[in-house]
């Protein structure tokens, strides 16, 4: 073993300013993709140019639900599935805030599924980061609305026979104006997508395919978190602009990633202003937005 230089070992990380340091290390397992997703998010928040005090992060319950608690921002850890309606109240209560919901697939798409489609339908100016690890991690690896057909979970011990949701398709069909998907390994593209999503107006959704080696990986013999990351590297295909209907997981083993939707549509408050603005004086502060595309290589 090579004797390492003492100067290499330090106590603090440059990202610590955006972390509640007194809560680090976080609870996530070794090899979990959540920490990497959070790293990408912190970089996106840091580079998006919005003053940090104007950013609020709302999470639901579950492993991903813990994100809010680690961020040194105004952060709200709500009940299971309810991050989005809480975020709607926060956003409408003070539209100068940038409200970001960071939660998991079970929280947003199962118990919070109704909130998800309606918040998208209304095109609320909210960003959703949905970390999809194909199961309920916090409660011990149960089946989720994203669990692929045939996969084992503790509630699908003979293999899942429910059809899963295709999250980008659900988001786009419900009215989201920005939809992207990356794996936790695509950290730079993921960061760029998060940054774009944060700076767009309207309901933006970034799905992150993330390893859960402790449960989904173990139950399905997918190996360590690193093994799962390697499988993402082998199986993911970048297809910007792909029809969200065509990006369901598990078709020929491929993970289609990229930016699928990036359109403009009036937000809930735009529509409200249009309908009521002529008659009533409803003060609606604007938040800073940016339509610039960040180049993301691909096909």
């Amino acid at each position: 073993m090579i004797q390492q230089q003492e100067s290499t070992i330090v106590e603090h990380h440059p990202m610590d300013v955006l972390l509640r340091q007194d809560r680090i290390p976080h609870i996530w397992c070794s090899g979990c993709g959540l920490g990497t997703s959070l790293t990408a998010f912190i970089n996106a928040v840091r580079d998006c140019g919005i003053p940090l005090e104007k950013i609020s992060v709302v999470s639901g319950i579950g492993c991903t639900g813990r994100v809010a608690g680690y961020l040194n921002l105004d952060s709200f850890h709500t009940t299971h599935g309810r991050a989005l309606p809480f975020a709607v109240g926060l956003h409408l209560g003070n539209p100068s805030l940038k409200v970001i919901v960071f939660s998991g697939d079970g929280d947003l798409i199962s118990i919070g599924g109704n909130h998800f489609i309606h918040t998208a339908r209304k095109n609320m100016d909210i960003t959703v980061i949905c970390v999809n690890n194909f199961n309920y991690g916090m409660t011990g690896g149960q089946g989720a609305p994203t669990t692929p057909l045939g996969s084992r979970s503790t509630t699908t011990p003979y293999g899942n026979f429910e059809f899963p949701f295709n999250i980008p398709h659900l988001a786009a069909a419900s009215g989201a104006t920005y939809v992207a998907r990356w794996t936790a390994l695509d950290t730079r593209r993921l960061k760029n997508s998060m940054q774009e999503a944060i700076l767009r107006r309207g309901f933006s959704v970034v799905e992150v395919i993330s390893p859960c080696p402790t449960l989904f990986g173990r139950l399905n013999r997918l190996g360590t978190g690193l093994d799962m990351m390697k499988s993402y590297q082998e199986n993911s295909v970048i297809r910007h602009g792909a029809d969200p209907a065509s990006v369901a997981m598990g078709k020929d083993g491929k993970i289609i990633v990229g930016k699928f939707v990036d359109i403009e549509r009036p937000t809930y408050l735009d529509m409200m202003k249009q309908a009521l603005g002529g008659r009533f004086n409803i003060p609606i502060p604007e938040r800073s937005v940016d339509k610039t595309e960040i180049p993301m290589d691909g096909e």
Partner: protein
Amino acid sequence: MGEPSTSSEKPKYWRTPLDIDKLQMPKGKVFIIKERCKGCGFCVEYCPRDVLELSYEFNSKGYHYPYPKNEEACVNCKLCDMLCPEFAIYTVDATKEKKTEVEKVGN
């Protein structure tokens, strides 16, 4: 993964840039917060310059943390920093110091 390149190798270019003599390979310095590491190995696996290796030693949580076995090769691409789920590794640009030295020599 591609073949690891080390600092002893000459950088490979598809075509030789005209200003090759003025170009300088960035250099990075690696910092590790060893007590945060959970030994996932993402940084070691995906370092494009094969700078890192897991240590033989454990940290107090019982994980093998990375160390820069080949720090000379680091180009400060920050991929380890971005992939690390634990906020336990980062790199900084160490080129400047070197440049100053080069400039000094030049003077």
